[in-house]
């Protein structure tokens, strides 16, 4: 059950503090691109992220914006225009969009391939 502190349950209305902050400026857009994997820097996605995620700047930012625009069927201008910001503000899943680069770990020892890959 939800807890209500007002007898008339007026606190059922979501508090402004609980509203997600809209992405409206360059800094927020940079964070968005980084968080969802568009900046080329893999978004922190582990139990103990160390420090804030790296944010794209300059040419890297424009390229990240272009990638995001292309995926969202927007003109790939690299500019943070209104349509791009609107796309960033659409409700979305929190899992990053882009796959990370392959791990640089040494190759695994020879053995049977994973079941799921070898099944068919």
């Amino acid at each position, binding site marked *: 059950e939800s807890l209500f502190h007002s007898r008339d349950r007026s606190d059922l209305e979501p508090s402004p503090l609980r509203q997600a902050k809209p992405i409206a400026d360059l800094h927020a857009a940079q964070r968005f691109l980084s968080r*969802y994997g568009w900046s080329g820097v893999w978004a922190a996605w582990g139990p103990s992220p160390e420090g804030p995620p790296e944010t794209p700047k300059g040419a890297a930012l424009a390229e990240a914006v272009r990638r995001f625009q292309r995926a969202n069927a927007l003109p790939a201008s690299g500019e943070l225009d209104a349509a791009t910001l609107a796309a960033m503000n659409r409700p979305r899943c929190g*899992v990053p969009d882009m796959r990370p680069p392959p791990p640089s770990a040494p190759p695994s020892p020879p053995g049977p391939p994973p*079941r799921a890959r070898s099944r068919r």
Partner: protein
Amino acid sequence: SPRAPLSLSRRGWQPRGYPDGGAAQAFSKRTLSWRLLGEALSSQLSVADQRRIVALAFRMWSEVTPLDFREDLAAPGAAVDIKLGFGRGRHLGCPRAFDGSGQEFAHAWRLGDIHFDDDEHFTPPTSDTGISLLKVAVHEIGHVLGLPHTYRTGSIMQPNYIPQEPAFELDWSDRKAIQKLYGSCEGSFDTAFDWIRKERNQYGEVMVRFSTYFFRNSWYWLYENRNNRTRYGDPIQILTGWPGIPTHNIDAFVHIWTWKRDERYFFQGNQYWRYDSDKDQALTEDEQGKSYPKLISEGFPGIPSPLDTAFYDRRQKLIYFFKESLVFAFDVNRNRVLNSYPKRITEVFPAVIPQNHPFRNIDSAYYSYAYNSIFFFKGNAYWKVVNDKDKQQNSWLPANGLFPKKFISEKWFDVCDVHISTLNM
């Protein structure tokens, strides 16, 4: 948050699973357990609604994969494969805080857990407002199973929530993506057949249409040949869809269809049932008042029981009954087995490639109106019988020859079992 996420965190409930790029790509077992955490339920939907919606979301994936999903309320938390919970802001010991109402509504850990942002307005699938919990749950389960985001139109794995009509389904790309990880559904069938029905079109003309059905154990699927997939929401229990016939392990179906006769029979054990197409139920008695089911040996003299399978050949007006390595050709006009029968199946239906033949104990034989061909099923394989068109193109093919075997799952897609607990969803 009033949900005391810290207490969960202290209990050591940390996200399991792999960030993308981690080791495992897919679960290595076929039955996965899930639990909606009692200490992290939605504040907006009833517990029953939440469980029902999540169970349906799991079932939707099991309809297209060889995976089964089972709600587990008893096992220790660590033994449950997929745990789901609602939380706000910093939640459930998760390092990824939610952002409040709007934007991020859920996230999931591959091969791990699913978190929903309880600041969002989640609604049941019948609602046309808010964010459909079913749709979000299906999406997040896709992540847990190993699928990344895609921007392909129609895919449930698009990162953004797209408000659409309440009904949605996994599309072709979702099915193929998950089957790359877990393979396709394989399995044998007790019987398969095309069900003929007559409908009037807009001009009042009678049109003959057909639907393909697959029966396995106590379940059946309707196969949409046009879309090359099963009907959404199948399998269904035989008990529900075919009143009056045995509820499981049907041996054969035969539709005797001539200018004078239009009779449909189901066979099981040493008995057979006649099915009334108009009333959509098995007949309890015949025109003479004799009750169904009847003995196969009475209605079809000379035919052994139990049968492996049977089908009706309209051109020859013969029913072919199969039993072990033998086939019996039954003349429906004279109501007796042809003199030269029984014969070996290999004699009547010879292999086009030597030794590539089911030989005996066929699971099902059926005439497909979609392919104008007879098919034999055994295990997870099928053999197509040479038809007139094949003979015209390659005159050397033997009459009624069997083309080499292929996998059923390569021709009829996604005929998948679901966990029995979700059968009636």
